[in-house]
């Protein structure tokens, strides 16, 4: 795909994973997340195998583990909650280093931590190997409602335009001596947001008129290419493996 719309979670490349059509990657990622969520929390080994599968996919995609590690910190706020659970949970309790911990709480914490991390890592894998534009194309090929893909396409295009507008308005405020340091000085910023909203609304109207003028009927022209059975097989293999791991974990639990 063309340049532009580089997002911080995307790592351009030409690996077999990058080259897969976006629609198969979206389906594969969704299945992988479902497999992770369905894995019983009492079998920690299963989560280790899930991670191994992901490591293999990253290897093929040629993306270093560190790259994912730094981006997975997005998960941190959720992990904080998990850390509290062993202290807050009920009986039975175990004593570790003189601290009383709830067994149920420990499992719950591990469950959130393991599934959350793996889920984030799967999403990051999809994002790292697929440009935003292709994600929208993939959704389109998966027959997502036209309104959803249209909104996503327009959002991709206009996010930067609106951010630019907001930046110019802020500069104009600052240039006139506005220097908000305290909450009670935030009024001008709030009013700026209000007028930004109205300007964006008006722009939306003009964009719509311009689209109508070029014969738009509510559906974006379809792009992208169909995926071959081999591509489906290749993309779904890791997800299928993870589903198998989840099933075995239920069996041995």
């Amino acid at each position: 795909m063309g340049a532009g719309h580089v997002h911080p979670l995307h790592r351009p490349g030409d690996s077999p994973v990058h080259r897969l059509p976006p629609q198969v990657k979206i389906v594969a990622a969704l299945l992988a997340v479902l497999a992770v969520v369905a894995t019983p929390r009492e079998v920690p080994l299963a989560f280790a195998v899930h991670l191994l599968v992901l490591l293999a996919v990253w290897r093929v995609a040629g993306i270093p583990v560190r790259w994912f590690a730094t981006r997975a910190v997005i998960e941190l706020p959720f992990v904080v909650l998990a850390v509290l659970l062993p202290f807050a949970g009920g009986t039975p309790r175990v004593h570790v280093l003189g601290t009383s911990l709830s067994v149920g709480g420990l499992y719950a914490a591990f469950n959130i931590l393991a599934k959350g991390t793996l889920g984030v890592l799967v999403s990051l894998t999809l994002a790292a190997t697929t440009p935003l534009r292709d994600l929208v194309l993939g959704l389109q090929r998966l027959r997502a409602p036209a309104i959803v893909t249209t909104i996503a396409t327009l959002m991709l295009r206009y996010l930067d335009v609106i951010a630019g507008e907001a930046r110019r308005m802020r500069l104009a405020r600052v240039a006139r001596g506005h220097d908000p340091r305290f909450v009670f000085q935030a009024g001008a910023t709030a009013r700026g947001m209000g007028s930004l909203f109205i300007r964006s609304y008006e722009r939306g109207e003009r964009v719509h008129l311009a689209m109508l003028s070029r014969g738009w009927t509510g559906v974006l022209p379809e792009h992208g290419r169909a995926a071959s059975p081999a591509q489906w097989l290749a993309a779904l293999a890791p997800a299928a493996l993870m589903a198998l791991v989840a099933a075995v974990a239920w069996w041995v639990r």
Partner: protein
Amino acid sequence: MVGAVNAAAALSVRGLSFAYPDGRVALSGVDLLVERGERVALLGPNGAGKTTLALHLNGVLMPASGTVVVTGLPVRRENLREIRRRVGLVFQDPDDQLFMPTVADDVAFGPANFGVRGAQLEQRVVQALAAVGMVSHADRSPLHLSGGQRRRVALATVLACEPDILVLDEPSANLEPVARRELAETLAELDTTMLMITHDLPYTAQLCPRSVIMDDGVVVADGPTRELLADAALLAKHRLELPWGFAL
């Protein structure tokens, strides 16, 4: 045989009136005839109704009374698709027009809506981009283009629809001098019928042999550009004036 004359005309507007929902009357009886192949400038002060008229030409707005006929086809709901193919509207702000992730996608949007597919669509895209000298930028995002380049791509998105009449809203606004001249050269090479809304009188003199002045929702003058621009009293009456140091 008025009908026969109109059928030959690229654009025929008769007694066109329109008021916005808030009651503001924008057009009160506009008459305008543009022959095929003509390049006509539409001049007038802010709020004269120029852009409102342009939005009627492809049926984005529907007249309260009066008629608009484009190369023989009246603007009515059942004809809208064909009307919008025949009338190409280039909006003032290219950011309103260019909404797809890449230049090529955007140029393909119009013709794809009008049913062009496959190799023919690709050919249309290349031809339109070639006409404005932007082929090498086909895969870039419109965000990463300069103002002048965006304006040329916006023009290409409409040219790709192969319109019978091209309507441009302030094509030279916000352009640096070189980009303004380059756009003029591009426009001068097109043989499409053209209606150009502008405040840029030198641009008018350069590109359009005929000019129409609108004020207060009606056409107040219509004639050879040089004659109109030389009539200082007429220009002053409608808040128009040549830039400092410019004389015809």
